[in-house]
């Protein structure tokens, strides 16, 4: 690779967007060429400065309110255009007196009850053997809701501290388990604090980390005896979710950062937690 090519690819290299072979060729060139290496260092520092020195203009609370109410208006208007409002008034007038279905057609009611019981029996006996794919989906929805709520209502943390020795004891006293808490400031993901949450029918610990301008909620609760190992990643509604289980705990990380960055976060976290 010559200097001209190296300069041309420099931005892609600094952004980590080149394929491994091209990256290697540039690295080789930077080792050999002092001039390009110098350019690489100053350009890198400038790029770093852009993100840090430019203000991020958040939306005001008024704008939020304005948009939400205009969305509501939009739905109502739409409904009126379709004549639904008028229809509803009519509907209420026409609504017959409620009658007992049991009174009218006992065999159908009994049939329905039997069908429900039969379905329940089948569901309870057969579905768990296939590990109910819906269970994860449902949990993912709960996780996203909790993540979004934590960011919306400015209730990100119950205990705001970047000190793991403050967050951990606080959580320990509130829960019937002691979640691992580590600060990852030196790795670029500072601990912001901790929060209590309720998921999967149990109280859980939520640890909040920040990566650049994005927040990561890490939910932790004890792993069941039948917990399967391995990592599971999914994307839902624009959020990235990552699930893993170690010998003691169930972890769910959720954020709006991309999959690669979230995987990196998981790795950092796993490297830092004390192993017995």
């Amino acid at each position: 690779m010559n200097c001209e090519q190296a300069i041309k690819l420099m931005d892609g290299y600094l952004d980590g967007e080149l394929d491994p072979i091209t990256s290697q060729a540039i690295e080789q060139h930077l080792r050999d060429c002092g001039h390009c290496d110098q350019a690489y260092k100053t350009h890198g520092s400038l790029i770093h400065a852009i993100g840090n020195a430019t203000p991020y203009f958040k939306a005001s609370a008024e704008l939020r309110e304005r948009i939400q109410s205009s969305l509501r208006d939009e739905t109502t208007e739409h409904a009126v255009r379709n004549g639904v409002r008028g229809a509803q008034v009519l509907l209420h007038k026409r609504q017959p007196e409620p009658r007992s279905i049991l009174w009218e057609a006992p065999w159908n009611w009994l049939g329905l009850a039997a069908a429900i019981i039969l379905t329940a029996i089948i569901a309870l006996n057969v579905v768990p053997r296939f590990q109910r794919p819906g269970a994860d989906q449902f949990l993912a929805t709960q996780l996203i809701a909790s993540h979004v709520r934590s960011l919306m209502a400015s209730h990100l943390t119950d205990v705001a501290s970047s000190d793991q020795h403050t967050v951990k004891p606080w959580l320990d006293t509130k829960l019937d388990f002691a979640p691992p808490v580590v600060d990852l400031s030196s790795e670029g993901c500072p601990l912001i604090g901790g929060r209590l949450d309720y998921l999967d029918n149990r109280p859980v610990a939520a640890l909040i980390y920040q990566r650049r301008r994005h927040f990561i909620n890490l939910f932790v609760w004890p792993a069941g005896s039948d917990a399967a190992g391995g990592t599971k990643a999914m994307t839902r509604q624009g959020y990235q979710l990552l699930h893993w289980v170690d010998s003691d705990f169930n972890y769910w990380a959720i954020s709006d950062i991309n999959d690669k960055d979230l995987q990196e976060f998981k790795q950092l976290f796993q490297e830092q937690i004390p192993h017995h």
Partner: protein
Amino acid sequence: MPRYVPNKIAMALPLKTADASQTEDFESDSKIVKFVVLKKHEEQDATQEHELASFEETMLPHMDAAHNLAKWLLRNEEDAQDVVQEAYLRAFKSFGGFHGSNGRAWLLTIVRNTSYTLLKKNKAVDLTTTFDEEVHATGHESAGPVTILEHAEDTELIRGAVDELPAEFREILILRHQEDLSYKEIGEILKVPTGTVMSRLARARAKLREYLATRIGKEI
């Protein structure tokens, strides 16, 4: 023991008990049809409520990103707010067409398009990348790269220089450095190939460096 009274409709429609219990009051077919139509409307209403809820859940978390991009593009708070609101309404109307997983990129695409519509309407001069040649052709001394780095934490200076860049450079710097988007995501928003994202970013940064050098040169 309740006495069972055989019912005509229940007998005729034994499999539709639920419907039968609601429609039995209607003596004529036309009324039944009317009722079914009303029922349909009610369902539509519920669907709309549901759609709004799911839209809000997916898109409201990205309002800061939307506002930030609009503010950088339009450089005016009032315009930025109008554009974000307009973009949200547009997004809601075409939400049915959104099947992707990246809500932020999708919303930012709409915010960008809406911003450009306004910029074009206002005949903004910074839509082209060539406008700056004469404005910035100054006789001042330019600062070297090392001097620029000494000013790396000067927020006012860097913000001012970014603000002076043409729109297409401002937006790409914001998407990359503030939203941490990948080249692929940026390419989707700007509707250009990944290679163009890289070269445009490089040009944007070079231009920024040039502006910084000029500004610092003026100070010296």
